[in-house]
């Protein structure tokens, strides 16, 4: 009931806007990719392609794959498959390290984690664009 309105009584409140939702969104999207797309890719490239199961025997020739990857849509797909899970990892590692007691260096942890993901993302884009 509105008669119960009380001022925010919390002494620790920092106030202001948090940008955590941005990193969490990348984490969340990366988690979806890692959970749903990665297993399929691992099955296709790591098992079916590697052992030459069924149609994979012909599909996984060098020329075929090189041709496939030169398609811009496939490049975008691969970029998403690599970059989002990188940010997923960065976020998870950052928070896990804080959980196990590195809370004292929170900011450096965040910078190193996300910077690593960003550098690898740029590298991934660079490699894909060169193909």
């Amino acid at each position, binding site marked *: 009931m509105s008669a119960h309105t009380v001022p925010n009584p919390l002494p620790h409140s920092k106030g202001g806007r948090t940008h955590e*939702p941005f990193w969490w969104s990348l984490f969340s999207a990366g988690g979806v990719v890692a959970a749903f797309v990665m297993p399929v890719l691992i099955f296709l490239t790591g098992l079916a392609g590697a052992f030459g199961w069924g149609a994979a025997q012909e599909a996984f020739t060098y020329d075929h794959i090189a041709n496939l990857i030169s398609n811009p849509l496939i490049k975008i797909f691969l970029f998403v498959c690599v970059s989002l899970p990188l940010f997923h990892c960065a976020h998870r590692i950052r928070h896990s390290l804080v959980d196990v*007691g590195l809370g004292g260096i929170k900011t450096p942890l965040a910078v190193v984690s996300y910077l690593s993901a960003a550098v690898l993302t740029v590298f991934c884009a660079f490699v894909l664009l060169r193909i």
Partner: protein
Amino acid sequence: MGTPTTQRTIKLEVFRYRPEEEDEPTFQTYEVPYREDWVVLDALNHIKDTVDGTLSYRWSCRMGVCGSCGMMVNGYPKLTCAAFLRDYYPNAIRVEPLVNFPVERDLVINMDDFMRKLKAVKPWIIRKKEQPLAEGEYRQTPAELAQYKQFSMCINCMLCYSACPVVGREEGFIGPAVLALGQRYNLDSRDQGRAQRQETIFGHEGIWECTFVGECSTVCPKDVDPAGAIQMAKVQGAMEYMKTLLPWGQRS
């Protein structure tokens, strides 16, 4: 049926702290009768009534409703009214106050900080304008009730605060039960107070501190699933954040 010649017993190692007598907490071992249908709370009541009247602890209903008898039982947060001796027998049981809270005395913790956080999330139905009684109740469909019912089962027992590592290291973290209760009212079709809970739930000390360890939901005696409530809120919070980034979005 023969009468047992010797009464079986079980040992309880109980955390004692009497601030007027001692600077450091100690453990005191009590041997109590072992009965199949006894819970840890029964054993504590036996100690209090017949062995040592100085032992302090909280309890009330003995049936998992009041949420007062939460303690660490062998290092695990539990309602002592639901922790059967038979699950530990013949080993000794270590009983300690809930961790992540200051200790008042013996097994009694200080819950002031929890109460402050609980109040901050305004866990009651907020209406922009209260409708007069003559107009009847605020009606709700079963589907609308189902949206929040699970989160309304919380009994404020604070087991989830003892289980959560983030509560242990971040003093300001609003914590699982309170965030789930905030969701409970935000998801209630009769409620219009979401904006008033915004800062507490979606601010620096709210859901974003959670690292999804998930222990809160594991220890919850009422299956409230606070971790689920927090993740749901994160999805909403992230969508709202993204909207503020749009050129036509409003930054709050």
